């Protein structure tokens, strides 16, 4: 921001710039064009984060009857952060989010990759089947949550299908058993986002040039060998991007989990976003929430900055 303003002032101040046709005009136009976006970013990032730092050092709650800017009356220093380090519910939510990620992302990746292999060359019906596969990812995630809530009722269709294969009535109470509830929520995530993996991986696979593969075919290389030595290495960047997108989104996961189980039974499906939401809405200790949120923001910005840097240099 700062060096941009100096650029602009320099441009208006020096007559030499104006002598270059379009030079100063272009600079000023560039500034004006990016200004709204810059202001919005500052409005949503800089100011709230400063506010968050301040509130996180207090014990402020919206029920205290004092406005947030007078939260210093409830100053507790770094106590919230100390509490955070010893908060078993926070760490278990963190751990659960990582488990969800560790299951969802690989399954989505393998299913997506498998489907992409089937779709990479043309066959009758390809277009229609391709569009049909994409449908789940366009369903509103919250609506998907309500749908899966119905599917996993004990008298619902999932048990009906299982009954059909088992040959006897199956009445599993999916959403009230801690392990099964987590399984059910994971299934809903895999259902919704496998198409995204498929879409991105297929686009990457199609763009791998054909000539080398043809040459390998002539040399008698097997399909698996061609795939492993020619196709996969060329898809490296796109695989990293696809996996990164799902890791990021999985870390934020909220909608379908919260709607299906509300984080329960107990805290069995409580991911980090659900945990923060519950502390925000039910326990209303916003000073503490600010501390949690800030800790997550710091970790994420460091990790993402490193990742982006590495990806750019690659």
């Amino acid at each position: 921001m700062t060096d941009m303003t100096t650029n602009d002032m320099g441009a208006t101040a020096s007559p030499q710039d104006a002598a270059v046709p379009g030079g100063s005009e272009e600079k000023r136009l560039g500034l004006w064009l990016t200004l709204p976006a810059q202001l919005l970013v500052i409005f949503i990032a800089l100011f709230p984060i400063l506010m968050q730092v301040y509130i996180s050092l207090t014990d402020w709650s919206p029920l205290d009857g004092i406005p947030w800017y007078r939260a210093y009356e409830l100053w507790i220093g770094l106590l919230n952060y100390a509490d955070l380090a010893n908060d078993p519910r926070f760490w278990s939510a963190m751990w659960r989010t990582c488990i969800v990620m560790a299951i969802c992302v690989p399954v989505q990746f393998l299913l997506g990759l498998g489907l992409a292999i089937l779709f990479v060359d043309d066959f009758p019906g390809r277009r229609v089947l391709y569009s049909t596969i994409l449908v789940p990812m366009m369903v509103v995630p919250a609506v998907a949550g309500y749908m899966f809530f119905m599917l996993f009722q004990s008298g619902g269709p999932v048990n009906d299908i299982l009954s059909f294969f088992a040959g006897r009535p199956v009445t599993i109470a999916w959403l009230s058993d801690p392990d099964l509830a987590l399984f059910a929520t994971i299934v809903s995530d895999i259902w919704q986002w496998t198409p995204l993996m498929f879409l991105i991986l297929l686009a990457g696979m199609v763009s791998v040039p054909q000539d080398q593969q043809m040459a390998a075919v002539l040399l008698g290389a097997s399909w698996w060998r061609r795939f492993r030595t020619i196709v996969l290495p060329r898809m490296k960047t796109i695989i990293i991007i696809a996996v990164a997108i799902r890791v990021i989104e999985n870390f934020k996961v909220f909608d379908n989990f919260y709607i299906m189980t509300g984080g329960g039974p107990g805290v069995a499906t409580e991911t980090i976003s659900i945990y923060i939401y519950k502390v925000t809405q039910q326990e209303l200790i916003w000073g503490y929430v600010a501390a949690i949120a800030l800790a997550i923001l710091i970790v994420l910005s460091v990790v993402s900055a490193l990742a982006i840097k590495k990806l750019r240099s690659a």
Partner: protein
Amino acid sequence: MQRSLSFEIFRYAAIFTFLALSLIPTIWMISMAFKPIAEWQASGADLTWWPENPTLDNFRFIFGESGSDLIVALERTAGRPILASLLAATFGTLIAMVAGTSAAYGLSRFGAGGNLPLALIQLRIFPPMAVMIPVMIMWAFLGLIDTWYGLALIYGIVTMPFSFWLMKTFFDDMPREIEDAALVEGCSRWRVFLKITLPMMRPALASSALFVFILNWSDYLIALLLTTRDWVTIPVYMASLSSSMTGQLYGAKAALGLIAAVPPVIMGIAIQKQLVRGLTFGALKE
């Protein structure tokens, strides 16, 4: 490449198995939306996969039409939440597109913007839940809680990274010769942008806007935190379609779910060529 017959059989078998599983939730929702109340909760042998007596009662019910055989009338109908979702998503898309497109042009042509691209990626990486406390305080201070324009503002900011990156890749791809020709003719940079570049970009603008609209329309968490009653959006309102008295109003939920699901599915299929570009921040163009 020529494939063997057995591969073709395997291909169709695998794709159809996957589709059969993946379409179950969608089929169930469609079927439930047209089921009369007697079939909602049926289980075991009575469970029907397709409505035996299809009816539009569920749709009539959520729009408050009495005379259906449902137990209680709704306190509030689905009309207002649908309007809220439409207004917030549409104006949010407008904000994201105006700010994102102009910034993308500024960066693509004049290298302006400094750290904006990186800041926008980071904005996307942060879980919205992690900045919601200050946002809730700010929105309360500005009187934006429970208004459609308050929701539209935050939607616009949250989806701006997508409009920015999408439009940036489109501008990067656009040949500059036409713009240069107009500049030589004596047009100002502004006029070139408004009268030549933007009209040429109409298809790109349309698909980016649809993409951003789908994202805004899909939100649940932000509306859950920033709306309370008058301007709740469809997903938030759907939770009220159940109570201790009536139990789960499955059919009504499915009907509204179907209404909420149809626009993004149609739009998504319409822009499927641009989906990859949008989802990967322009890293991959199909």
